[in-house]
């Protein structure tokens, strides 16, 4: 038994080493596509019921639900096919990102149009459309977009399509175009640590703020409700520091990212428990999921942690 166990352990260590190398070299298109699909399903569910709370009172509220389904499909397609990863996934992810921006506009406007509007910022952010939720929704789209530029795990040497111009670069002035192409190149080689760190930091801040006001709505009844509020700025700070400092990226970033992910898991448990403890509990499960603690919200916070972890494993740009 001990032999088997140590064998497994060795295999496990070996696999971990392989994964780490793949990430370092930007060869994780398959896994990131899969991850995109999974996060897209989670954020799709979240947006589906959140918008149901808002009664889908505008047709545009359906778009993130539809796009998250498409993105999930595209993510799975990208897992199986390089071609799909480079085309469908990229396109769907891009459209989803744009939709996140549109959503952000509508949420800002929605708060403006509530009684008291932005003059009652706290009340109307709590009771109106959650202002940063669309941007957090964009996280999975961002992952998909990145994935579309990566190499596949099994690819051993530089990509033959490396110098293929993307449609966007053709539209841009040549200098900017060149910049974009080299950015693509860096991503392909796993040299985009700084970018991911920034995104991780921003997403930590946004979801930390969402956690703050939704827990504030709940009057911070449990001490644990402060944890995401406390962890988020640290994660953000470390992420931003990592863009300047290689050492931070290698040491503090993975630690705080792991803490955030663990906190998200605990949060998920408590939110699920909170749903079941509501009046009517299991009997009115769907309603209680809708209006109880948002069970997927901690996972979005966890996504920021995951991005931080990813960043810590990546390489930095040479320039």
């Amino acid at each position, binding site marked *: 038994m001990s032999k088997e166990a140590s064998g497994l352990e060795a295999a496990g260590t070996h696999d971990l080493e392989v994964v780490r190398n793949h990430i370092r070299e930007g060869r994780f298109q398959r896994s990131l596509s899969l991850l995109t699909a999974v996060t897209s399903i989670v954020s799709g569910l979240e947006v589906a019921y959140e918008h149901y709370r*808002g*009664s889908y*009172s505008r047709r545009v509220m359906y778009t993130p639900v539809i796009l998250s389904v498409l993105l999930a499909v595209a993510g799975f397609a990208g897992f199986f096919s390089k071609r799909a990863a480079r085309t469908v996934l990229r396109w769907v992810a891009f459209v989803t990102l744009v939709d996140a921006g549109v959503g952000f506009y509508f949420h800002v406007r929605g708060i403006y149009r509530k*009684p008291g509007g932005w*003059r009652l910022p*706290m009340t109307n952010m709590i009771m109106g459309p959650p202002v940063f939720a669309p941007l957090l929704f964009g996280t999975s789209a961002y992952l998909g977009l990145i994935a579309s530029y990566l190499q596949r795990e099994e690819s051993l040497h530089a990509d033959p399509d490396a110098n293929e111009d993307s449609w966007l670069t053709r539209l841009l002035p040549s200098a900017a175009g060149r910049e974009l192409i080299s950015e693509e190149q860096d991503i392909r080689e796993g040299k985009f640590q700084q970018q991911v760190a920034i995104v991780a930091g921003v997403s930590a801040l946004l979801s930390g703020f969402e956690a703050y006001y939704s827990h504030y709505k709940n009057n911070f009844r449990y001490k644990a409700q402060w944890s995401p509020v406390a962890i988020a700025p640290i994660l953000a700070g470390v992420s931003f520091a990592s863009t300047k400092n290689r050492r931070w990226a290698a040491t503090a970033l993975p630690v705080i990212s792991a803490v955030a992910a663990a906190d998200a898991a605990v949060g998920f448990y408590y939110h699920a428990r909170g749903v079941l403890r509501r009046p*009517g509990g299991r009997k009115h499960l769907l*309603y209680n999921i809708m*209006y109880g603690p948002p069970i997927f919200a901690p996972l979005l916070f966890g996504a920021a942690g995951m991005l931080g972890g990813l960043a810590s494993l990546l390489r930095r740009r040479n320039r």
Partner: protein
Amino acid sequence: MKEPLLGAFEEHNKRKHMVGPLQQIHAPMRRFRDYEEVDYVIVGVGSAGGVLVQRLARAGFNVVGIEAGPFWDTEHDWVSDEVGSHDLYWTEPRVTGGSDPLALGANNCGKGVGGGSVHWAAFTPRLHPSDFEVYTRDGVGADWPIDYADIMPYYEQLELEMPVAGPAYYPWGHPHGYAYGPHPMGGVGNALIKGCTALDIPVSIGGPVAILSGSHGDRPHCIYRGFCIQGCKVGAKASTLVTHVPDAVKTGAEIRDRSMVSRIEVGKNGRVTGVHYFDIEGNAHFQKAKAVIVSGYAIETPRLLMHSACAGHEHGLANSSGTLGRYLMAQAGNVVMGRFDQPVRMYKAPPAHALTEQFYETNAKNDFARGFAIQTVGPLPVAFGKQMIAAKKAWGWGLRREMMDYNHWATFGLLGEILPWNDNRVTLSDDKDRFGLRVAHVSFNLHENDKNLIKAAKKKTEDVMWAAGAEQVVQEARYAHLVGGCRMGKDARTSVVDKFGRTHDVANLFVCDGSVFPTQGSANPGLTIQALAARTADYLIEQGAAIFNSNKRDMATPRLRRELAPPATWGKGVPRLK
């Protein structure tokens, strides 16, 4: 925050006529002269009148809605205050009596454009299919001249126009779902859910209520401030003032407010020719019209028809059956109050946000026919204090003490079907109002079936309150809603109007409001009133000029004209379960 950003809130748009913070009434409004013969005069722009005015105007008729109360500017006229909302109610004098006299006024009668829909709590359950054949099924009450299938498309339509928020699946009556999602719960709703769940009673959470759970064009969604029955300044709660009247004005209807119709004039050919009314200064006017629709609700409609008695109609206009003013109904509305150890703060969230209709239908095990519903209610301090006088006989220091515990109480209201009885009726009193018109006298008596039903309903509601964890349960007897008095029926000898609201006696005189209900079920009547109004409108539009120049009655069912809904209706909500 000590104050909002940029300082205290001040009223802007003082020169615009606002209904809600964002929606405004189209100006200038079309005006008709008294001597112009309009197509329709609608007496009373309330729940039914608002829908009628909108439909008929959009269909291209010349329409004047004459309303006794004001055409509200909600930003200016309404307040977030209990006592300050006195003017929303019908506070003209009336007399109430019988063995079980009804409270009127704030309890069930509105005044001003939007009528009762301005101060309803906005529960909008449908009637059940069984409600349309109570006599056939149970041998009591009466049958309707229409059945559920006739009104169902209008329920579905009005649920979109208001729109109604509620669960995706509503299990009672004819099961269906709602296009707008359910609302979050307040403390009272949670108590109802807890109590019902403990007793294994299904409960509908977060609706059906005509309160926005998501924004709807220029109407923001609910802000859960609990002042529903004081008039919703937010415009989230549906009233015809915010749902239908704006479109009516835009499409050319005139709303003539602060004008009290005193008599309907009958011409030599036995057809009505217009209405006499007093303006705000007490000046008498006569508006000519090709047809008249009375939408004054269960007391003022019979009263106006009685005032319009004339040669050939000695006992009141359209009263050849002698049933005018009779078969008046209110629902038993006992309020059951439970005190909880933990605070509830029931003033938050709309009073209406959860209910059960599990006991709605006739049950052979009961010693009564028909049934009841249990709903949330959330009285504000003044109303709660008055309930405490009754429920606990509190006064003096005892009242002060009970009221200091206001935040510990939750309240449920039962809604019990009281059957239509011949002796429950509206007549004219000898008291006079400010125009010298005799006021209405309302006489109400409970009968055996009603009493047994109330007893059982009260017991069940108290059981639910105990099961919710209350440490003390008390109750106050009262009534809710008001329908009947001008009932519809197939037989001209036992009813006042036909199934489209046309009076049996006068071909161009219609009644369209809650007074046409032959029975009432234990559903709040608001939705059904508006659905019937839309149906009557479709009938009138289908008949076209025949209404104005023919005494022939075409009883063919009109087609549903969805295209006449206010345009803001479309493009919102989720697909519904049918």
